[in-house]
C-alpha cells in the first residue's frame, strides 16, 4: 500500500474486521541533532470530540504511560525500528473516546531551542497488534516542517461503528503550549 498523504484516511476495521487492537508507531530521523532527538516526545490524546482531550489524565506520554481506562498505553521500549509506540486495545476504548490523536513535540528544556524543521524524516504507521503486520504508513511529514515544535501526526477515530485512521500532519509553531491549548489541556 502506498504511503498515505496528509488528510488521507482508511477504514481499518472495515478492511480488517478481525482487528481488535493496533500499535501506532512513530519514526523520525533527527540526524546529528542529539539534543533534538533527546527532547522529542510522543504524546497521545484521547478526545471526546474534535480537538478536545477529555482531561489531563487522557494525555498519554512518557510521564503518564496509560490512559485511566488502560485502553491506550505507551510502550517503554519501541520495537521494529520505531522511535516510540503506543498500543490501543480498540475493544476497551471507552465509548466517550471518539478520537485518539497521536502527536510529537519538542520539549522546551533549559537548553537551546530546537524545531521539528530539523528533522530529516518523520512518519507514523499503524500495525495490527495481533501479528505486528504493518497496515498503513504515512508519507514523510518532515519536508513540510520548518519552525514548528509540535505536530499532530494522525488520529484514530470512530466511524460507523468502526475505527478509521487519518494522517494529519498539522504543525504548531508554539509547540506543546499551543497543542495543549488547542485540545483544552492545562499545563
Amino acid at each position, binding site marked *: 500500500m502506498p504511503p498515505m498523504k496528509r488528510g488521507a484516511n482508511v477504514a481499518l476495521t472495515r478492511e480488517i474486521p478481525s482487528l481488535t487492537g493496533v500499535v501506532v508507531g512513530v519514526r523520525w530521523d533527527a540526524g546529528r541533532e542529539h539534543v533534538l532527538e533527546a527532547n522529542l516526545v510522543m504524546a497521545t490524546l484521547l478526545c471526546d470530540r474534535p480537538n478536545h482531550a477529555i482531561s489531563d489524565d487522557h494525555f498519554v506520554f512518557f510521564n503518564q504511560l496509560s490512559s485511566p481506562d488502560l485502553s491506550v498505553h505507551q510502550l517503554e521500549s519501541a520495537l521494529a525500528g520505531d522511535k516510540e509506540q503506543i498500543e490501543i486495545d480498540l475493544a476497551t476504548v471507552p465509548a466517550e473516546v471518539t478520537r485518539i490523536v497521536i502527536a510529537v513535540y519538542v520539549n*522546551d*528544556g533549559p537548553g537551546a531551542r530546537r524545531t521539528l524543521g530539523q528533522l530529516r524524516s518523520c512518519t507514523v504507521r499503524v500495525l495490527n497488534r495481533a501479528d505486528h503486520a504493518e497496515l498503513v504508513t504515512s508519507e514523510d511529514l518532515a519536508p513540510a516542517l520548518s519552525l514548528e515544535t509540535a505536530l499532530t501526526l494522525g488520529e484514530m477515530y470512530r466511524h460507523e461503528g468502526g475505527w478509521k485512521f487519518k494522517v494529519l500532519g498539522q504543525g504548531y509553531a508554539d509547540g*506543546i503550549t499551543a497543542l495543549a491549548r488547542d485540545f483544552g489541556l492545562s499545563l
Partner: protein
Amino acid sequence: MTPDPTTARPRTDLAFLSVRSARALTPPPAPAPAPPTPTPTAAAPAVTEPVPRATSASSALLDLDDAPTAAPHTAAPTPAAGPAPATPGVPASGATGARRLDPSPPPLRLASLPTGGRLMLTPAAPVVALSRLASGVGTLNVEAAVTSGGDDLVLSCAYALASGQSSFLNPDSSQRTAPPDARLPVLTASGERSRRLSIDLRQVRTLSRAVFVLHSRSGTPVTWSGALLISTIGARIDVPLEPAPASAALAAVSLYQVDGRLVLRSERDPAGSPREACASFGYDAIAWLDDAHVIA
C-alpha cells in the same frame, strides 16, 4: 436498611474509584467494627454479598485497595446496566470494568495546582502536587526574588537521582549543571547573580528529590525577605520566606518526584551552612569540599 446491589450506583470509571478510595482519610473507627460482623468461614459467598451493600450505603467505607473486594463490585453493575455481557459490541463498560484492578496509583491527597494557576505556599498550606502532565512538560524554574543579602546570596540545590546518585549544585562554582558529567543536564543554573535553577522536565523521572537552599557566600546570617518563585509552562508557585529566622543558609523548598508527579513543599528551615541544610534533609552521601562546595 440496605439497598439492593443491582440498583446501587455503579463504579464506572477510575475517577470514581479514586474518590471512594479516599476512605483512608476518614477516621478508622468506622471500618473497624464492620469486618467482625460476618462469620469467618461459614459461607464464603455470603460474606462477599454484604460488602457491596455496606459500600453503597456509605461509599467512604469501601476498601478499594483490596482487589478481591473490588473485582466483584466492578463486575456487579455490568449486568444491571446492560442486557448481556456478550461480546464485542459493548466492550466499553464490561471490558474496562474488568481492567480497573490496575489503575493509577492512589491519589496523593495533596493540594493540586489550579488550572493555569498561581498558588502561594504558606505555613498553613505548605505543600502542592503538580499533575503528571505539568510535571513532565517543559522546564521547572526556581528563581530567588530576594531583597535581603544583596549580591551575597546564592540559590543552590541538593539533589538525588533515581539512580541513587546525589550531590549539591552550587552555581557559585565552576559547575553550573548537574549531574556533572551528563550530556543532557537535569539541573541547570542560570540567571544573574546565580539565582535561578531550572529542571528539565523531560527528565523528571530521573530526579528523585531535591532541596533548594539559599545561602550567603560569606556565611553571614541573613534576615530573609522575599520569595522563591517556582514556575512551569502554565503555572507559578510563590514561596514567601518571611517567617524564616535569620541564618547563613535556608532550606527553602523541598521537591519530591512521586511516580511522575512533582510535590513541592515550603520548608523555611534555617541552617548554619548549605552543608548543614542538606544534611538535615538526609543528603548524607555527598563528598563536601567545604561547607558550600562539593568535590568535583
